[in-house]
């Protein structure tokens, strides 16, 4: 009995010491502007999250080297969501309540982004996702921004491009049951059908499935002119390879998930001829090439994907907003007011010049953008141009 009491006392003492030292640490941190990041840093889709957080960290290092903001240094606190909603929520809670970040970049994937967007709205924290494309992400409150075009924009351009430019009248879709893939597939289905085309088959799979031969067989029997596969790289790679194993020679169409170079490691030559709709290529600017060089130099020659570029831009947009907050007298000591001012300044973003070109936000926080179309040749995406839909017709912008 006595032994137990001693143990309990020792524990209490230990806890007390820890809480004091933790308190001390946060005092010292008062001169650091913390930015949160949520994305998959481990797991099958870690390639997306790692590149996005790397790009944000690169931007922060550059900003810090240039003197930081208002004499303060920036710090990126990157939390691993593993691409899962529950993990993303606990990451969010740590960032929002323990780390007291001024804003959050991420989440990288759509489903976690939808969940975290709701919490950001409730707590009043700016969230900028570099990659979550579901049309509903920005419809949760007015604290959410994105530096990636919305799905509705992407599926609109995709459906018009397939119908008007490629001249397809019948296509099939094979998509995973997650918000990202389903959102795109259903968007294309709706618009392609409205244009007068036929969707011969809507086949589904689960994220993590590795055998798509049954779905591909079903699609083949409906004889479409092309197959639309708006999925992440691991699934898309497997679909392309198995289609070839089944002796199918139907062309494949894909989405911005295909812009991650990991696809060439996984699917190699099976990617030949795939046409995908993704981010528009920025006007030839030194900002983009400088970013790509700096990224490559900082991360062992790795090449950034389009989402990483978006993440880099998001960080600089945020820097500008935070800079203006300080100019308007904001102080980190009142974190709630500060966060609210950051939101006001995000809305004031006007013709931001980033690696992706000129960025403006629509009233709902969506990026105003056109879409790029690419065709894969010899494991390299060839840029076919950037497009917008005007008056229900596709128009090439450049």
């Amino acid at each position, binding site marked *: 009995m006595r032994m137990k009491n001693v143990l309990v006392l020792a524990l209490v003492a230990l806890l007390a010491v820890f809480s004091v030292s933790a308190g001390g640490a946060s005092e010292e941190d008062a001169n650091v502007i913390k930015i949160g990041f949520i994305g998959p840093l481990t797991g099958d889709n870690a390639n997306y999250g790692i590149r996005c957080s790397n790009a944000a960290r690169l931007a922060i290092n550059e900003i810090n080297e240039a003197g930081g903001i208002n004499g303060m240094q920036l710090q990126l606190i990157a939390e691993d969501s593993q691409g899962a909603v529950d993990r993303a929520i606990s990451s969010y809670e740590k960032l929002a309540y323990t780390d007291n970040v001024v804003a959050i970049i991420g989440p990288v994937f759509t489903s976690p982004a939808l969940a975290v967007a709701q919490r950001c709205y409730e707590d009043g924290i700016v969230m900028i996702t570099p990659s979550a494309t579901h049309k509903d992400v920005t419809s949760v409150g007015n604290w959410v921004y994105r530096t990636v075009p919305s799905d509705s924009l992407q599926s609109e351009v995709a459906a018009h491009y397939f119908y008007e430019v490629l001249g397809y009248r019948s296509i099939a879709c094979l998509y995973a049951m997650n918000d990202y893939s389903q959102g795109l597939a259903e968007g294309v289905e709706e618009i392609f059908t409205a244009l007068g085309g036929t969707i011969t088959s809507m086949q589904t799979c689960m994220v993590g499935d590795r055998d798509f031969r049954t779905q591909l067989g079903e699609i083949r029997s409906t004889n479409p002119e092309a197959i639309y596969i708006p999925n992440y790289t*691991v699934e898309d790679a497997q679909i392309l390879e198995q289609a070839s194993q089944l002796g199918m020679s139907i062309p494949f169409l894909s989405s911005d998930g295909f812009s991650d170079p990991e696809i060439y490691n996984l699917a190699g030559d099976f990617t030949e001829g795939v046409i995908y709709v993704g981010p528009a290529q920025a006007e030839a600017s030194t900002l983009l090439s400088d970013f790509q060089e700096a990224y490559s130099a900082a991360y062992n020659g790795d090449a950034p994907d389009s989402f990483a570029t978006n993440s880099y831009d998001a960080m600089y947009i945020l820097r500008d907003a935070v800079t203006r907050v300080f100019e308007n007298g904001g102080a980190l000591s009142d974190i709630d007011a500060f966060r609210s001012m950051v939101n006001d300044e995000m809305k004031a973003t006007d013709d931001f010049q980033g690696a992706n070109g000129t960025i403006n936000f629509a009233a709902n926080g969506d990026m105003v953008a056109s879409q790029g179309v690419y065709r894969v040749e010899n494991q390299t995406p060839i840029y076919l141009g950037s497009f917008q839909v005007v008056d229900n017709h596709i128009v090439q912008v450049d």
Partner: protein
Amino acid sequence: MTTLIQYLQYFLNGITLGAIYALIALGYTMVYGILKFINFAHGDILMVGAYTGLLTYTALLGDSTNGAWMLIAFFLAMLVSMAFCAILGMFIEKVAYKPLRNANRLAPLLSAIGVSFILSNGAAWIFGTQSRRFPYPFDDTPIVIAGLSITPHQILTIVVSIIMMIVLTSFVNKTRMGKAMRATSLDQPTSELMGIDVNHVISMTFAIGSALAAVGGILASFDFRVSASMGTMTGLKAFVAAVIGGIGNIQGAMLGGIILGILESVGAPLLGIPSSLRDAIAFAVLIIILLVKPDGILGKNEREKV
């Protein structure tokens, strides 16, 4: 409309999937037969087998593109991986299961789950979490006959699985060690009294089961890719296959594996439901089978005699 030829195609794909499940199910069923214990780390052994195979194969191959050497290197890699996994299997048994043999039945089960996490987290730490390709050691251009297509790697999967099953069956039925295994599975204390070295039999069971898992892992890499988490779902399905066939029964494990593979491939189009529900369909059918025959298709109904 799904045509007959398509169903045949799905059937064929299902058999390839099923052959892999069957190979892995053998390991579950052998261990259960002898120890009445589910080795939940078995799925992760297949992952270790896949990585060992991949690393050995790439190391042996070097820059060579010689077709014959690729095949030889592939089979050598398979042997190395089988040997490595056999030793690993025996080691795990000695360290994590043997000390618990007389403990509460739940203790070795938890120990197995612990080993499973150690293996998969360890692999994720060493190799990273990204999926990797296992390069084909041959030209994998599909062979199309009468609208049915089959790839060389599918043929390889089926052939290797059949060979492994024949070898295993004759080993268990024809050799002294096989006889000792059968005796141990029937009645361990009596076998011990008859002079059978039960510890040795158990070690051999783990070695053989793990070597089969290594083969299953390498064959599965072509279809599932190599990743630290590849063993989880594949292992779970193989376990289910073993239960369906009648756990503890070697022929049952093979049958269960093939049935599960075919159900997964054919189930969704046959019932006209979305393919994303394929696992749900397969498992629903399995529940029905178990309701009708709780001991599995080939399982013996052994009641305790009063």
